[in-house]
């Protein structure tokens, strides 16, 4: 069984900007351990002769012409925003006073 520590779960939660309770940390630690072990099992099954694959179809160099296409209007762009001000998306403060 992989060692997923409570600290690691809290670190991941921090990166993902989600708050977790102590109970959740314990729950996620055991769940994540199962996932990591499953991946390890798959990894063990793959021989060294098999190349890592990021794309199933061997294609490359698919490019777009550098030609401007219509954008959304400002109104359309902001229509789904929770809040906006002066044509910009409004978001809550990012950092506390240092």
């Amino acid at each position: 069984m992989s060692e997923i520590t409570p600290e690691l779960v809290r670190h991941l939660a921090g990166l993902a900007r989600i708050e977790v309770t102590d109970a959740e940390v314990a729950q996620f630690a055991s769940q994540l351990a199962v996932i990591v072990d499953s991946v390890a099992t798959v990894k063990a099954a793959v021989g060294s002769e098999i190349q890592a694959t990021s794309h199933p179809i061997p294609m490359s160099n698919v490019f777009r012409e550098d030609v401007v296409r219509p954008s959304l209007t400002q109104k359309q762009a902001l229509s789904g925003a929770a809040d906006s001000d002066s044509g910009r998306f409004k978001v809550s403060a990012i950092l506390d006073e240092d």
Partner: protein
Amino acid sequence: MAKEQLMDYQKALETYEVVIGLEVHVELNTNTKMFCGCANVFGDEPNTNVCPNCLGFPGAMPAVNGKAIENSIKIGLALDCEIAATGRFARKNYFYPDLAKNFQTSQYDEPIAFEGKIDIEGPSGKVFTVDIERAHMEEDAGKLTHVGGSTGRIQGAEYSLVDFNRAGVPLVEIVTKPIYGAGDEAPELAAAYVRSIREIVKNLGVSDARMERGNVRCDANVSIRPKGQEKLGTRTETKNVNSLRSIEKAVKYEIQRQAHLLSQGTAIIQETRHWHEDRGATSSGRPKSDADDYRYFPEPDLVPIQPSKEWIEQLRATLPEKPAIRRKRLQELWGFSELEFRDVVNSDLLDEIDDTVKAGATPQAARKWWTGEIARIANSEDKEISEMPITPKQVAEIAGLIDSGKLTDRLAREVLTGVLAGEGDPAEIVSKRGLEVVSDDGALLEAIDKVLAEQPDVLEKIREGKLQAAGAVIGAVMKAMGGSADAARVRELVIQRASGE
């Protein structure tokens, strides 16, 4: 915030060896963004050049801008890099409001260009070869405006506003290997390096390269270690230092700050720091994330890039000459002394003077105007010379008017003021302001005779060979003519009068 203590710069350099590393972001000037067809324009109304892609809407599919790839390869080639046979995009995951997708499309282990080098001349003239580790493609983030709080900065802001016009603009990030041995020239070398990168991308025509608009941005990594120690010290990364002057100051500040801490037995924390131009200091930002924290993985929505050898060679053939070679050529062509030429380079005026000479001015006249009067006015207005509203063609025109005797130096400076005030081209200003030199000898003689009548002894003195006596007459005539006379011609006429012609 408590002011941080610094060690004296010279003392710091006696004790510690400085190692720097530079990351320069170059915004490409393509018509459209990196992964969508939204316009890549600076200064438009907020959130008007945005689409489902750059707003991170679910299901939006990116499409690579071929021109951006081409420009990135050109940058790689200009830096003597290898171009990757296969390059791939990767997702760099992090959560921040300037990035709607919650990941930045970047490159990780397969950058488009790697293993390059560039020669940089330090302030003493010593040439450093800076090794380039990689140049990779990525997209810019949106622009945040922090509102509220005491400083307008991110700390203490009540909320932030986001404009995504810049999100998705193509960037090339150029990363150096650690630069050793620069010693006390490290701060200047860092600035000279960024200047060279700016020159390269400008000459390639792939970026507008205007630092004041953030087209070229530098993150400076600085670490120090006690002299003789093998192990590298802990580094800090000062973000987004946005002028050449600031780069120099920020690197110097970090050297002094770290030296003080180490001398006190305090460990350096690996972190990003922010440069504050107003108080000439850096402050602590966030702790530096490890690459692991970004959970990079290959971008599934974009296929690999495999530039053919033919394409690469075709692009290589279009490269302009390298900055170091260009400088050598221009210095010889212009015949400037070492000192004059270094002044031009350090003032960032190579392009301006080159263009002014191409527009017909002599190299010395071009140099004199740009490093003299124009630089002086820019300095007094606290502006970069490149921001001054005058073109090399206009400067050449002013120089031409002096050469043809139509303007004196003093009148030319007045014309320059007119050009900077937006009154038009030099010839228009001359006629509008009535600045042309009086070349009509009749009018000059009239003024001379008037002055001589008031100073009758002058002619006698000149006849006795005391030619300097003419000076007082010339001065008075120039004053009477409102400066619009050619002093040399006035002198000739005064002496003619004295010799009874």
